[in-house]
């Protein structure tokens, strides 16, 4: 993959300026129609999800009080994992987007909500809502692309350290909530210089994150295990497992949103003076959906409708399914590709890309069983050799 502007065949070349603005207008109309039709049923939906989630969490934690009995451990851990996933995905993520602010309920509002997550809501809202949703898939602007730690594009220069990228991605998936917290703090950038390290703003934000992590860890790894008495260790293990399950799940869903093959990325300069229509088109090309059952959509927080979510991040998630066919129709009519595939396919596609980009450009594609030994030798040379060797071999391959 490469940024859309450098592709030999630009997938939006056939669109005129007017087309793009018309797409924008059509999408604005859909948005307005949904906004106008929001009502009691929608409010009931989110309140029901919250109610179910809280009762499921309470019930699961109650079962875990007896988790030294294996069936209780299994049941409690499964329930808590689902509860944590619901809390982060369909509830937390979407409330923090302001999807439910129209209800004017201070208890379910983007400015008051806090979630079961290492990153404090306030910091996450900045990096996610403001940066990621505004600069979606713009290389160098949207840090969600690889979270600043991965090679996400052929245009990024390959370096041997990227060989560890699949492992790194897996570890990040297991402890995703901490990765997000570090990422929201822009840890890499802010730890780099003394001046940045000592910036009072950064220090205050770090303190806030550490406090949140402390509370979260105390709850799952001290307080609830203690309450379980003789089931201390099984409860601790159950809570740890539930957190890892939730992290793996949300990491997978999020990877599917922008990382599968075919999703476009954009050049930094391409968004200067971008119109609303152009912004919409960038969101259309930069996202991918996951197809599946209703339960699957709820468990992904309806991020399975990533395309619809990116077009209308502040529309309630329960409405994405109903507008999806209309959105797809616009894609079809304007000759754009609407990416949608089952979860396993999208996850596999995203992982394939992670692995492909961990290797020098073209390496994976060129490798066949026949030339494998030679390819490995080449890779070793590129890894152990200096910059010069890499450049030479790279050029030879091209």
């Amino acid at each position, binding site marked *: 993959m490469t940024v859309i502007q450098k592709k030999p065949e630009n997938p939006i070349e056939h669109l005129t300026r007017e087309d793009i603005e018309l797409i924008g207008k059509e999408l604005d109309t859909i948005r*307005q129609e949904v*906004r106008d039709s*929001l*009502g*009691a*049923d*929608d*409010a*009931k939906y989110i309140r029901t999800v919250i*109610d179910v989630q*809280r*009762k499921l969490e*309470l019930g699961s934690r109650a079962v875990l009080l007896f988790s030294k009995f294996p069936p209780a451990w299994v049941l409690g851990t499964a329930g808590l994992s689902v509860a944590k996933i619901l809390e982060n995905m369909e509830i937390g993520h979407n409330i923090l*987007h*302001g999807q439910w*602010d*129209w*209800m*004017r*309920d201070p*208890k379910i*509002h*983007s*400015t008051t909500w*806090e*979630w*079961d997550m290492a990153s404090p809501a306030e910091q996450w*809202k*900045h990096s996610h*809502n*403001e940066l990621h*949703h*505004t600069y979606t898939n713009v290389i160098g602007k949207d840090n969600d692309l690889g979270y600043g730690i991965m090679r996400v594009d052929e245009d990024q220069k390959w370096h041997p350290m990227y060989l560890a990228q699949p492992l790194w991605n897996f570890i990040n998936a297991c402890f995703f909530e901490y990765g997000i917290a570090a990422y929201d703090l822009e840890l890499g950038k802010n730890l780099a210089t003394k001046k940045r390290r000592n910036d009072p703003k950064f220090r205050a934000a770090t303190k806030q994150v550490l406090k*949140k992590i402390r*509370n*979260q860890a*105390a*709850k799952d790894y001290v*307080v*609830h295990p203690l*309450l379980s008495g003789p089931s201390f260790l099984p409860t601790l293990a159950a809570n740890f497992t539930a957190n890892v399950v939730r992290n793996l799940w949300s990491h997978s869903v999020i990877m599917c949103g922008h990382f599968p093959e075919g999703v476009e990325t954009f050049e930094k300069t391409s968004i200067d003076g971008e119109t*609303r229509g152009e*912004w919409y088109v960038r969101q259309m090309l930069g996202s991918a959906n996951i197809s599946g059952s209703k339960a699957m959509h709820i468990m992904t927080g309806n991020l399975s409708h990533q395309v619809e979510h990116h077009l209308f*991040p*502040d529309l309630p998630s329960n409405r994405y399914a109903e507008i999806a066919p209309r959105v797809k129709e616009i894609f079809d009519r304007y000759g754009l590709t609407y990416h949608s595939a089952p979860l396993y396919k999208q996850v596999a596609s995203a992982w394939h890309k992670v692995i492909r980009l961990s290797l020098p450009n073209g390496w994976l594609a060129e490798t066949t069983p026949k030339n494998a030994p030679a390819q490995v030798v080449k890779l070793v040379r590129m890894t152990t050799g200096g910059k010069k060797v890499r450049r030479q071999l790279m050029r030879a391959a091209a």
Partner: protein
Amino acid sequence: MTATAPRSAVTRTPARTALRDRVLKFAELVTTPLLPVDYLDLFDPLRSGAALRGRIEAVQPETRDAATIVIRPGRDWLPHVPGQYVRIGIDVDGVRQWRAYSITSILDRADGCFTITVKAIPDGKVSNYLVRRARPGTIIQLDQATGEFCLPEQAPAKALFVTAGSGITPVMGILRNSAEQLTDTVLVHSSPTADDVVFGDELRRLAAEGRIRLIEQHTDTAGMLDARSIAELVPDLHERATWACGPVGMLEALEEHWAEAGLADRLYTERFRPRILVTGEGGTVTFTKNGTTIEADGATPILDAAEDAGVLMPSGCRMGICFGCVLPMREGAVRDLRNGEITTAAPGDGVLIQTCISAAAGACDIDH
């Protein structure tokens, strides 16, 4: 009149307070990032210690467009003073709306409930909902009863009530609770027809029993009553303390007339609807915490106008999607630049607005 006795707090020893605090702290460790109350609310939203709420127990029709709503308040509800009103927050079509309604029930009802009586006004979102659509079992938000439209400690020997339409509601609250104190009472009430008189039967019965003198004006046939005619109908008006509740126009006319007669201090009025906001192009925006006041036009987002004036504003995507710029509007009106929709806030509200896509549509106070 029954005096309001504020519920005396259970006396706690310092040791008990400390223990209670420690238990609460521990409970917070268990439920973080939520609070223990978030879980308790799932099971008992009306319990003591919860945010004040109520449950609609019954909706009883009064006239073709008015109904009495029986509300069971949460356990922290304090007894009201007759004549007072209560602010209720109710979700209409999923959106929380706050309105004030006079309490019409007797104090100390056996079932522990109180009632409000609501007349549906044309295009009234909340009043129409309460009269025609509200169902028993609905949980609503409450504030404690408040208001000054009450009898003084020492009830006047002679009283006059002037009401129109749903203006009868606080007066009914007073009449039902103050039978012994009010010995000489005149009620002048205007409504379109005899059938439209809210509590018509009860008022006529009170009149028949000689408890009050009732003057009904049916405006569909007899026209509106002006202040001068009231003076003619009630010749001993100057001897009476007067309470008036009704449309703004009526109240202003009465206030003028009573002032001319030198009786201004004997007239108590109650406005039950906020003043209609003049919405137009642009307006004065006041940032109450910051102290800055700016003149913003109707086409510029408040965010931009404020920043141009040097106000430090929270901001985000500047296109209405990220909600990084949301601030509470305490009073006023703004226009959503995307669709022209007007959002208004009555004094005391905290309607959250996105400053990046909202322009002033009249004067507004923003809590920032």
